């Protein structure tokens, strides 16, 4: 079977799990969980990082010597200008030229501001960043971000950290149908079944932090999520049956009929 790989820009990935590095109980559990997840891409808030010396940073120091790709995010930004400034700082520090644009105006819901996200994406794409915007689960917005040059679109399943799962699977399905860039479900996932559902809807990947880091056993949960992603992906590729209103026996009635 052909190897099931995918791309962000011209970077090839085989894992479909982007994992956030925040909220873990300690660096030991964090490292073990990241290993168990099989993730190739790690994401974190730039404002939490010691940009003057990233090798000293309280989180990044534990990842030295590993070959992860970093997806820093602009969380905390409430305008496009702020997000752009943060992205430039991150790139200047040599961390990565990938950037997750995350702009929220409301500290209670942390829902993304689509207008500011579009503005920031347009600017950052022009500056040569590989931009992955976090945005609402809106098919039209996702299309607009793709047209603005986003390397992937990352609609939220539900508000950050809520673990409510995919609130609008219909929209996610539409986004996948329309998209010409990878779709990554970002935020709101809680359980393995949420993750599997996302993959069955045909998204290219999922981004998670809280459901792993705050599990009773983060290492076990990271592995479970990895398996859920693999199962959902394989199911998507294999094609589920259509739904029927009434029963139909798997061995066909005809052969049992008395002649």
């Amino acid at each position, binding site marked *: 079977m052909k190897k099931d790989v995918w791309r962000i820009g011209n970077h090839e990935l085989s894992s479909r799990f982007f994992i956030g590095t925040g*909220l*873990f*109980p*300690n*660096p*030991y*559990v964090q*490292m073990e969980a990241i290993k168990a997840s099989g993730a190739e891409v790690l994401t974190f808030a*730039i*404002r*939490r990082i*010691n940009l*003057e*010396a990233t090798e*000293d*940073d*309280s989180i990044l*120091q*534990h990842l030295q010597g590993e070959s992860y790709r970093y997806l820093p995010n*602009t*969380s*905390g*930004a*409430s305008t496009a200008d*702020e997000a752009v400034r*943060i992205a430039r700082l991150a790139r200047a520090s040599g961390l990565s030229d990938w950037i997750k644009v995350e702009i*929220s105006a409301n*500290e*209670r819901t942390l829902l993304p501001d689509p207008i500011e996200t579009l503005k920031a994406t347009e600017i950052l794409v022009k500056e040569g960043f590989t931009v992955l915007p976090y945005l609402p689960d809106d098919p039209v917005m996702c299309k607009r971000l793709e047209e603005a040059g986003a390397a992937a679109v990352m609609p939220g399943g539900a508000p950050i950290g809520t673990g409510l799962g995919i609130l609008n699977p219909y929209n996610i399905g539409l986004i996948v149908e329309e998209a010409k860039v990878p779709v990554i479900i970002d935020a709101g996932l809680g359980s393995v079944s949420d993750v599997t559902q996302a993959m069955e809807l045909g998204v290219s990947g999922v981004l998670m932090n809280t459901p792993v880091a*705050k*599990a*009773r*056993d*983060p*290492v076990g949960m990271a592995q479970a999520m990895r398996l859920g992603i693999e199962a959902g992906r394989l199911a998507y590729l294999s094609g589920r049956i259509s739904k029927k209103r009434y029963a139909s026996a798997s061995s066909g009635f005809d052969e049992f009929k008395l002649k």
Partner: protein
Amino acid sequence: MTETIVIMGGGVIGLSCAFELRSRGHEVTVLEINRCGGQASGAAAGMLAPYSENLEGPDEFFRLGVESLRLYPEWQSQVKRVSGMAFEYTPSGSLYIAYHEADRLALEGRLLWQKEFGSTGTLLEGDALFRIEPMLSRNVRAALHTPEECHLYAPEYVRALEQACRFIGVRIFDQLESLAIVEWQREIVVQSADQRAFGGDRLIVCSGAWAREHGDTFGIQIPVYPIRGQICAYETEDKPVRHMVFSNQGYLVGKENSTLVCGASEDVAGFDTSVTDKGIDRLRRWNKQAFPFLEHRPPFHRWAGLRPSTQDGLPLIGPLSGSNRVVLAVGHYRNGILLSPATAKLVADYVEEKRVPDYNRAFDPERFG
């Protein structure tokens, strides 16, 4: 009813449990393999800072921390009175500093929920901030000021606690090298390396980073890992840092004896307590970003301790269901000093089979199977 209680571990948690249980009239013996307060307890910077240590939301760990902070004024004065020893306890308040405008949203969000749990915090910027902390780097954009938070001098607090225990009749045996739990279901028998046996009705396990080894004895998982913390201290004049200052990279706290303590690393290094250049240099490169006057100063003292960290970040506090003779109190990670009074009262309530607030179920020692 008076119980005879054996406590394994003479760190801040073991000694606090001993002090509380003896104060309630029980017979208490503390067993320590090295010397009391010789590990994480004595190495701690002594910050009583549940608001600055919990950034995400009001979970059970935060609630236990706030409860412990509330108990502290009375608790520490009792320890001082009974021991006849003094130790620093400073209601300095804290500043959680931020360098990015983007941190504002997170600080505001934190303040919103922490105000519901006793914080009278405010967000400070510019002159208002530099007036109360004059030496702070002008690159700091904003800080969350939490007046409720305090700090104490941990080595002296633990020494006073030990003395207080002795004065009220707790029997303390230290330098025991190793301890084996010989019997715990029908009665308690703990044996030391020199074959002495210590018996009682109840066993309290307070062995911090060393607790994991007892999992097999009790037939449960005790996923406690040692995480090394390296700390350094500077000699200063005129106490240049007035508050406890936290950032996402570390903390600084000025002590009464004019030392300025800067911590701390979080190293995965097994039970190795050595201090490394890498660990301390990282602190030195970071702390000048908060206080530029530290730039060319070498720390005069550096040390390390092992924090007992757990798989889900919460301590294990509570009785074993298989035998109500055994109560665990381990895995306090970065917050052993803060949590000592609340843990002591909780453990004593479990021993006396009193009702405890429901949120403490989150600390069930059998939750890992």
